[in-house]
């Protein structure tokens, strides 16, 4: 049984301001699963719903974001539950302890007026009750040392650390309780290449030694090539392709993934790179049918009218494109009818 199973998940930002109704279809009918002890990379450009998907998987749902349909099933250590049906107390037991999160932009995640030590204490106190102070101090220092950070980090304020150090501290904070699954949102964006390499190294080490599962979200395909086992490509709120890393880089099936892979510049190779024509669509008013069809060189009539189903191309390769199958996705109608009921 997979560790995480997402079934037909739809989450929209639904707003109603001054009589103007607006639905932003950020996550639309997404189905995938995550096996134990694997690293999955989630790729896609800005504004395609990657971060929203993470929010739903962590059950950090606040209006105007609403989950309209679908299940998020976790199963590990004889626990099986749908995260979206848990109440506040139950959520608190699993969040951070089993399901952890490395937020985007380490600049703004740490409290600027508290020392790092205090932030660590807060985390431990909230989850481990009735423990001696010395005990968690020890746990904290061991974890910091284990990740190769200097102990002085604990007694500094966030502004005293460089961007790379801050990012590594955030990772330390997210992994101190040895979670089962970690969601990392753009962990290396805005870091320098050498620091980026250090952070990736650290994530890999954690994965190897704590044997956890990771979902890493980033738009940088080169990072995926270095860490992920499988890669999922998202476009305008929908998953368009999931494949093993090697398969996706050598033999991408969806036209969008093909453009994405072929446009990557490489040192030592000066051949002309071409990016996809057109512009990414707005999620508030996505194109009908397949959302990539206005930019797709292979678009057919069926693409304009119907949404392609996310099918199994082969055992470990899934794709949503009419080039490979004529199956039409259902469920779109059901969701759009139930929005404002």
């Amino acid at each position, binding site marked *: 049984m997979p560790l995480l199973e997402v079934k037909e998940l739809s989450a929209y930002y639904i707003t109603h301001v001054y009589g103007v109704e607006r639905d932003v279809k950020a996550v639309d009918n997404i189905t995938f699963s995550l096996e134990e002890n694997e690293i999955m990379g989630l790729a896609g450009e800005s504004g395609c719903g990657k971060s929203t998907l993470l929010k739903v998987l962590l059950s950090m749902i606040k209006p105007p974001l609403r989950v309209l349909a679908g299940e998020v099933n976790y199963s590990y250590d004889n626990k099986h539950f749908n995260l979206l049906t848990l109440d506040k107390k139950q959520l608190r037991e699993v969040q951070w302890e089993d399901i952890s999160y490395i937020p985007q932009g380490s600049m703004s995640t740490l409290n600027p007026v508290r020392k790092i030590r205090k932030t660590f204490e807060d985390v431990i106190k909230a989850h481990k009750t009735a423990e001696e102070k010395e005990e968690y101090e020890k746990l904290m220092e061991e974890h910091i040392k284990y990740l190769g950070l200097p102990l002085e980090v604990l007694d500094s304020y966030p502004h005293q650390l460089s961007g790379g150090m801050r990012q590594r501290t955030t990772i330390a904070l997210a992994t101190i309780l040895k979670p089962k699954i970690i969601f990392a949102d753009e962990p290396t964006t805005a870091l320098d*290449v050498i620091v980026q390499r250090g952070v990736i190294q650290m994530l890999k080490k954690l994965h190897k030694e704590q044997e956890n599962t990771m979902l890493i979200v980033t738009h940088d395909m080169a990072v995926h090539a270095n860490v992920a086992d499988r890669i999922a490509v998202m476009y305008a709120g929908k998953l368009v392709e999931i494949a093993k890393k090697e398969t996706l880089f050598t033999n991408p099936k969806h036209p969008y993934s093909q453009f994405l892979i072929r446009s990557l510049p*490489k040192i030592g190779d000066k051949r002309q790179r071409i990016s996809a024509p057109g512009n990414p669509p707005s999620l508030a008013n996505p194109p009908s049918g397949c959302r990539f069809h206005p930019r797709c060189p292979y678009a057919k009539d069926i693409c304009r009218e119907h949404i392609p189903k996310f099918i199994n191309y082969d055992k470990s390769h899934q794709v949503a494109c009419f080039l490979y199958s004529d199956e039409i996705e259902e469920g779109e109608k059901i969701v759009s009818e139930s929005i404002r009921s």
Partner: protein
Amino acid sequence: MSQNLLEVKNLVKVFNIGGRIFGSKLKAVNNISFNIKGDNPEILAFAGETGSGKTTVARMILGLETPTSGEVIYKGNNITHIKKRNELMEYMKEVQPIFQNPFETFNPLKKVDSYLYETARNYNLANTKNEISKIIENSLKSVGLTLAEIEGRYPNELSGGQLQRVSVARALITKPALLIADEPVSMVDASLRMSIVNLFNELKVKYNVNVLYITHDLATAYYISDRIAIMLRGDVVEFGDVDKVMLLPLHPYTQMLIESVPQPDPEGTWKEEIKLSSLEVKEFSRLGCKFCERCPYSMKVCKEVEPPIVFKEGREVKCHLYAKEGVTTKVKI
């Protein structure tokens, strides 16, 4: 002898941090010299990490920052001493900037096309509205847009890629000889990034525009540029032909940097571990080589004496390793 288009001589910029008594000094740009010939248009890349001083170099060339010492000479005129308004206009007409974040360069309350009209009017390029529209239409055409597409639109109605194209079109209105592009693609969506990068190449070939391309993304720098300068904490550590510098780097820092660029290739993952420095700020005030703390070949002399610039294998390297004779083998990390 033909005149250089742009000549930068011993450029230094020192920022004062803090007050007059307790403050400290930060040398953001340390003695940089380079030329752009101009007779054969080229793309010159400045690459480096955050805080290496690459943006400060660009700002000094644009005249937005006054150099502490050194000269920026454009077509024989020292631009740091330009006082007269019409001379300054003449210079600004020929050297145009493109900034990093297209969502910040445009005022969200102003229509996008108003920037184009303003630029045309400010430089007195034409007198009637029809003529101005024609100029704008032409420059938009060269970036692959039409006036109809952007007329009357606000920045939030356009995508990042389109806005960055408008930025480039605005810079092209005055028919500049040199574009200074500061991280022009870092905020553009992945699927559109290469179209902007290709645009610079097209401008170079079709319109004879020189581009100073400032970036931290070494992969696009390799893809597009003819020459490259690698910066580290205010120093240019290696400068030369892009194929030579990036495929056979000599300076230990360049070697480490290029080795660390993640390759979009599942085969080419990193094998060995690297050490990260925790003392990033302290490297600025170092007397000798700024890299000596992290360098695997660090010698005693590196800590004390600033390394000389050595010409070697068709490029400039700022490293003690090559200063002595006899060291000719390529070092490996």
